[in-house]
């Protein structure tokens, strides 16, 4: 495979260099929304006469090169009116296309002559985009619109049980998803306890998930890429939107900095469970002083110097604040502050009609702290990551057959896997200096998407990555008892351990006819960061650690093939995909590992290593347009793990193994003002470890676990409903000059969303535990199994506005 992709690369490079016989010119530019000035990502731009074209890149840029001639240039994007423009290509031309949203209510929802479906046209496999506008109409837990939870409705994407915003792609762990917010890495996309994700839907323009056939311009994670673009801000006028919900409120403001040249965007969200519950907790209550809330802040500014240069500065800042205090100083008090921050600075530059460059400098910060006080004892645990990155990507629109992308990336990581400080009375307990780990990660890549023949399109790429853990670092030499016997000291910048990997990526599409194609992909990736987790939900004890002399890079290899077919002029998109994924060097904590045992030893001492695999079949049917739209996704899969030091070396199902997973998402536009939405999920029960035996030590019942993840909880299923009522979009106004009444659009628009979560009140299992009651000596001793469920039927109401 590696060799063949190399051959393809070389041959494609050869094709690029070929002398072109006829005079050719390029038409290039940006595609934007006519009302907001936001660039449109993934819009189709094509030459009507040739039916040849491209889609805009992540910055809304396109470029097409064809023979000299007169043509019609068409821009098309779902939900927007097609734009047609005649062009005379006698020289290179810059054409910026502004597209307007479709008329508010079209009498008949017909699909106008789109150029085939992107579904059967591209080499993309396992790729899905979410329409943020539609996501906001779907029912959500407590009315909190959640993009990550909506992703879980896609085939091959699994949730980790009730209320959890974490997602698991094709058998890969949560650390195997590369989550990018304006190209900066987000390490933990959930708020505390995983109930809500950190992405405020009001701030998001585009969300794209790639779960297979990951192109070479992405790297660093082996299972998926979730690429989220924040809105740029309206450069034509000042606008705002917001909402008031049961547990949080949101406000977004945007407008031009310099009209049609620069814009700003600010969006904030804060939950107020604490504010709502405070009046009900008297100051004398045992829990006075406790509270939990989180907030998110997104901000972005962009400025266009010319058609050639544009800069963006964007950032995200989110914090969870969790305090637990009781009025009794003997009781423990906890503080758990945590959060993510990202900053991206980007510069788009167009060198010429065929060459587009994006340069991004990024900063990511993720931190988790846990502090506890009790009596005279204080304990705190800190873990975090800081990344400083720089990345250059070039899009080279060589000709109508070839689009080349190449570039490089560098990240400087600083990890603090887990630092413990403790104090007892006046004595500071002896804890080692914080083990901050420094590492350099670098990558270069090249990929070529080209049409080999009219029917065959290839996306071939190669990525080369390196990772080096460097000093200052103290490696402890431990004896069999786990005691330190010696220290190997690495000075500042000195290499502790280095790795490199060659990552071939290949995807091919063979078009059977206008409406159907088959696709296949192969990709291999290396991952140099690992998440070691004590539990299935996000906690301070979950620690990000880099590859080290003990922890080898995670290597993922995925093979996938699929059949894609459109029906009824691409009103329906359907696909069947099969995949096989192999994962090497997975990390888990050793059985009986102790989170506090990380102190005074090497950060990777308590870990064990193993492999995993996953295979599956995914079916997807999507109705893209019409009053009724939505999709059905079904996955059949199997995900296993093999660790020599776990489960006595026997293979065991992964926590994310789900044999069946079905999702149905439906949206129905009842009238111009009312829209309805329903979602349904069904998934095989989660694999959990339960004790098979019990025995008695010191009069207490001890559980003996034998087979890991061998028990299945009952299946998970749930139906949610939502209805959204918009206020009237227009009002009657008397025209001052004519005196006639005319209908004008309202400036202030608002809507109410009513939702019911878990409509038929299913008690889905969250976890199972065994409990015992009574006294052995009295003979009334009993052992029982209990199942805990989290969310019963929950109605919610949210009011949203826009101006």
């Amino acid at each position, binding site marked *: 495979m590696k060799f063949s992709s190399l051959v393809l690369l070389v041959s494609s490079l050869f094709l690029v260099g070929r002398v072109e016989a006829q005079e050719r010119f390029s038409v290039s530019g940006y595609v934007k929304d006519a009302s907001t000035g936001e660039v449109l990502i993934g819009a189709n731009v094509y030459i009507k006469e040739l039916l040849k074209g491209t889609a805009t890149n992540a910055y809304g840029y396109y470029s097409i090169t064809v023979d000299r001639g007169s043509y019609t240039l068409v821009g098309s994007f779902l939900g927007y009116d097609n734009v047609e423009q005649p062009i005379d290509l006698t020289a290179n031309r810059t054409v910026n296309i502004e597209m307007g949203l479709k008329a508010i209510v079209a009498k008949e929802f017909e699909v106008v002559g789109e150029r085939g479906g992107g579904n059967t046209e591209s080499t993309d496999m396992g790729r899905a985009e979410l329409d943020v506008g539609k996501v906001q109409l779907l029912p959500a837990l407590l009315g909190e619109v959640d993009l990550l939870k909506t992703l879980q409705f896609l085939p091959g994407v699994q949730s980790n049980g009730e209320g959890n915003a974490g997602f698991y792609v094709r058998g890969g762990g949560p650390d195997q998803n590369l989550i990018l917010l304006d190209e900066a890495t987000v390490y933990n996309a959930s708020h505390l306890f995983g109930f809500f994700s950190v992405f405020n839907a009001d701030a998001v323009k585009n969300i794209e998930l790639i779960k297979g056939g990951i192109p070479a311009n992405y790297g660093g994670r082996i299972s998926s890429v979730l690429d989220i673009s924040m809105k740029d801000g309206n450069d034509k006028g000042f606008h705002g939107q917001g909402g008031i919900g049961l547990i949080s409120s949101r406000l977004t403001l945007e407008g031009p900095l310099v009209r049609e040249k620069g814009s700003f965007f600010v969006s904030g969200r804060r939950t107020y469970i604490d504010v709502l519950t405070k009046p009900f907790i008297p100051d004398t209550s045992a829990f006075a002083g406790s509270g939990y809330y989180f907030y998110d802040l997104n901000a972005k500014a962009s400025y266009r110097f010319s058609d050639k240069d544009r800069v963006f500065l964007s950032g995200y800042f989110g914090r969870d604040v969790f305090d637990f205090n009781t009025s009794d*100083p003997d009781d423990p008090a906890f503080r758990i502050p945590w959060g993510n921050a990202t900053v991206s600075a980007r510069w788009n530059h167009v060198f010429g009609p065929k060459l587009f460059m994006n340069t991004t400098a990024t900063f990511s910060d993720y931190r988790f702290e846990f502090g506890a006080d009790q009596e005279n004892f204080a304990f705190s645990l800190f873990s975090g990551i800081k990344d400083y990155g720089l990345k250059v990507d070039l899009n080279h629109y060589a000709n109508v057959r070839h689009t080349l992308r190449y570039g490089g990336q560098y990240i400087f990581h600083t990890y603090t896997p887990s630092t413990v400080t403790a104090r007892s009375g006046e004595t500071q307990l002896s804890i080692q200096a914080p083990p901050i780990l420094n590492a350099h990660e670098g990558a270069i890549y090249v990929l070529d998407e080209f049409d080999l023949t009219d029917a065959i399109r290839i996306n071939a790429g190669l990525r080369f990555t390196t990772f080096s853990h460097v000093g200052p670092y103290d490696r402890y030499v431990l004896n069999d008892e786990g005691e330190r016997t010696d220290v190997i000291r690495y000075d500042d910048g000195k290499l502790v351990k280095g790795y490199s990997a060659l990552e071939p990526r290949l995807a091919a599409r063979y078009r059977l006819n206008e409406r159907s194609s088959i696709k296949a992909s192969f990709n291999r990736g290396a991952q140099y960061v690992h998440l070691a987790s004590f539990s299935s939900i996000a906690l301070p004890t979950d620690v990000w650690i880099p590859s080290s002399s003990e922890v080898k890079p995670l290597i993922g290899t995925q093979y996938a093939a699929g059949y894609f077919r459109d029906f009824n002029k691409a009103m329906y998109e359907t696909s069947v995909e099969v995949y096989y994924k192999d994962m090497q060097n997975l990390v888990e904590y050793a059985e009986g590992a102790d989170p506090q045992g990380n102190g005074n030893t090497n950060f990777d001492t308590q870990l064990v290593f193993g492999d995993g695999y996953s295979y599956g079949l995914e079916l997807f049917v999507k109705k893209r347009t019409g009053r009724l739209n939505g999709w059905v996704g079904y996955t059949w899969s199997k995900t296993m793990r093999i660790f020599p030091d776990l489960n006595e070396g026997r293979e065991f199902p992964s926590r994310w193994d789900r044999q069946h997973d079905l999702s149905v998402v439906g949206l129905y536009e009842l009238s111009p003002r009312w829209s309805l939405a329903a979602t349904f999920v069904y998934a095989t029960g989660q694999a959990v470890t339960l004790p098979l035996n019990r025995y008695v030590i010191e*009069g207490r019942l001890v559980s003996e676990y034998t087979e890991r993840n061998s028990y299945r909880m009952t299946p998970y299923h749930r139906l949610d409903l939502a209805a959204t009522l918009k206020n009237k979009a227009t009002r009657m106004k008397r025209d001052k000059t004519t005196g006639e009444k005319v209908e004008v659009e309202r400036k202030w628009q608002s809507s109410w969303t009513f939702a019911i979560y878990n409509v038929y009140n299913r008690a889905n299992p969250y976890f199972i535990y065994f409990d015992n009651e009574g006294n052995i000596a009295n003979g009334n001793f009993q*052992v029982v199994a209990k199942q805990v469920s989290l969310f019963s039927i929950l109605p919610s109401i949210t009011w949203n506005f826009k101006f």
Partner: protein
Amino acid sequence: MRKLLFSLTLLTILSGCEKTITVDLPPGEEKIVIEGTIEPGQPPIVIVTKSQSYFAPTDLTSFLGIYVQDATVIVNDGVIDHLLTPVCSDLIPDSLLDEAAALTGIDPQLLANANICIYTKPDLLGEVDRSYSLRVQVGDEVVTSRTHIPEPVELDSLWFRLSESDGTDTVNGFIWARFTDPDTTGNNYRIQTRRINLGEDGRPKDDINIAPIGSTSNDAFINGLTVDFVIFRGNSPYETDPEELANFSFARNDTVVVRLLSMGRDEYDFYRSFESNISTQGDIFTTPANVMSNIEGGLGVWAGLGVYERTVVCVPSE
């Protein structure tokens, strides 16, 4: 602590719900379980039981079936084999039941109601810095182990301080201890307490030595340091009064025997993982983990313990 966090989450975020379910588990394999200790100046105490399927019947008769009465238990002190003999509770006079309970850690009521045998040898007394191997045979099955009694480590001082909750509690408080960890790494500890003053029923408040959850620790963070730490009161596994179970403090005027046990690494691993196993049952914040045993071929522990023992009367020291 984690359970507390979890319940709080549920409280804060939403009303969770809980129900009793039937879980269909395959039968597990029965194993020999050893609970054996040897302390300086004391004879070895070995309790031999068997593990059971999780949902095996729990009436008293079925439950007592776990106690093995016909084991052959041999302790070797490095010189010769000592055959331990079974001492069964039906032969213990009622007047000695409390003493037997304190020695074995088994509830006196249970000893009185049922015939439970432990294995011991009165003239084999543990010695500091000596190794002892254990061999237990039940039918054709043999399990073995080896332990060592380390030097006891002393507590520098012990005192009682009233709880400061709202400034009015003049009744309850905690015992504090100061101790100096020896300047060598690899010291492992466990704390036990026993209230020997009489309760309302005219019997000692505690029948057995009790180690509260979290009483096992090592010197990873405190090597060579002098530290003060608070000692919470644990509850007997046989305690069922919910009010008692929620109380971790001592009362003014309680007379408390405090025991600081020192032990080797394997024994420490056992007690630590044992405490974690029993406290994390049903805890989603952890991955279920088995107790780490030093019994070859079986479960449980054979522990040589260095013992420092002192009695403190709970009178506030100012």
